[in-house]
């Protein structure tokens, strides 16, 4: 027992060291740090963009804080040292704009739409939103209180399909993991999540997803410690290369 606790502690320490070492080294080279607060669904694409930006601008060091948009917005308003904010919904971006914390008008840079995620072998043979109405089918989706659940309700309403989900998850990753584990036959998730799952789930498009699209907005922050870096990052996101990365991750880019 003692031994096991010891091991767990050791592991935690090792993990802590590993994650802190890298930025510390780079900071030693006197680089300028651009801090980007971004919605969790942007993690994979933004990290790829960050690497490219650092390659183009060796003097810059891009660091991220990923999280739920609705959690990040209040942090920025209460003075978190952010240079850029990328939100998964206009409503959360509006919280920042309302408090005059955004430098300039936020711009739409990506859209995310829902997909039906099924296990790779698609055991329940799902290929449209209608199939989800089968009462024997195990279905997971987000609770209506969170954005992905709100989007799911809008899409189902648009298709006039009545479904009874078996679980209403707190976030989209909860839905995705239940599909990955095969505990449910289908789940409603973002297309980017299917993409990020790397083949562990299969995505099925449905026409009504166009009725429930999430708009992603990005804006530099008013009191940014590194306004130039912020501008460079935002510009890259909207550039041809940035759009390519986002679209590869499953986003619709305007």
């Amino acid at each position, binding site marked *: 027992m003692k031994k096991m606790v010891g091991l767990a502690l050791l592991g935690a320490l090792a993990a802590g060291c590993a994650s802190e070492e890298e930025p510390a080294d780079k900071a030693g080279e006197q680089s300028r740090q651009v801090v980007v607060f971004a919605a969790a669904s942007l993690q994979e694409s933004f990290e790829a963009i960050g690497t490219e930006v650092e390659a183009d601008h060796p003097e810059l060091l891009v660091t991220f804080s990923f999280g739920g948009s609705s959690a990040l917005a209040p942090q920025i308003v209460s003075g978190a040292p952010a240079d850029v904010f990328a939100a998964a919904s206009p409503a959360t971006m509006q919280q920042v704009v309302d408090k005059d914390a955004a430098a300039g008008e936020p711009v739409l840079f990506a859209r995310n739409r829902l997909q039906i995620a099924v296990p790779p072998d698609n055991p329940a043979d799902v290929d449209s939103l209608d199939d989800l109405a089968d009462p024997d089918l195990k279905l*997971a989706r987000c609770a209506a*209180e969170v954005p992905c659940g709100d989007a799911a309700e809008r899409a189902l309403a648009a298709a006039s399909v009545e479904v009874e989900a078996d679980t*209403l998850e*707190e976030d989209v990753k*909860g839905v995705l*993991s239940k599909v990955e584990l*095969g*505990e449910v036959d289908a789940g409603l998730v973002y297309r980017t999540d299917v993409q990020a799952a790397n083949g562990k789930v299969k995505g099925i498009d449905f026409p009504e997803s166009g009725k429930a699209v999430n708009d992603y907005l990005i804006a530099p922050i008013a009191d940014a410690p590194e306004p130039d870096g912020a501008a460079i990052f935002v510009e890259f996101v909207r550039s041809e290369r940035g759009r390519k990365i986002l679209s590869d991750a499953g986003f619709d880019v305007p």
Partner: protein
Amino acid sequence: MPASTSPDHRLVAARARPPLPLLVPGLLALGFLVLPLLGLALRAPWRRLPDLLTSAQVLDALRLSLMCALLATLLSLLLGVPLAWLLARTDFPGRRIVRALVTVPLVLPPVVGGVALLMLLGRRGVVGQYLDAWFGLSLPFTTAAVVLAEAFVAMPFLVIAVEGALQATDSRYETAAATLGASRWMVFWRVTLPMAAPGVVAGSVLCFARALGEFGATITFAGSFPGVTRTMPIEVYLRLQSDPDTAIVLSLLLLAVSVLVLAMLRDRWTRSGLT
């Protein structure tokens, strides 16, 4: 068992002034543990409280939470007490390893516990796939899954408390019962268990409290559906993202229920003392 403190002891303790290196951190710890709860109470929307408390969803979650925690405690008693007895009263190879294994859920992140339960009892789990194929039985997303998840996380508290109580009771009473002709089962039921009763009660309280607060294993193994699997802690977490006021009210309610249960059982527990 807490023997009544003699007045002399109390006098001595009161007269001795505690040293500052103990007093200051001790008070800090007290503040650290109590002040957040105070903050919760201060921030609560007291005016909306009656409406929020009587909403169907809150009552559903409360009823479900209490029922599941109770069932999880019963399940833990039914299985955990015999396990504690085996650990305390029998000698078998690898007993120390078994004891260590029992405590693993205590240090395991509950989410990992939930994943582990899925791996075993999920629809594609090692055992679950057969339950599904042979009996059409699927545990995840059912109230039974909530009970299992809570029992998985909470049972070790009970096992450890009861094992401690059994170790502390004099096994010679069991010897005496045997010479009087009692079978081993009767010895357990009429002598061992009653003598370890305070430990069993204490363990049950811990177990119930832990089950009531269970979140990670439940959401992972049982999901979240109002009235079926969405217990209070899950409701709190969900509401925090959309309706913080309700989340605060729910937290207060959970806190009140926990304090009430602890107070009730603690009272009975001290009164049930032997002699």
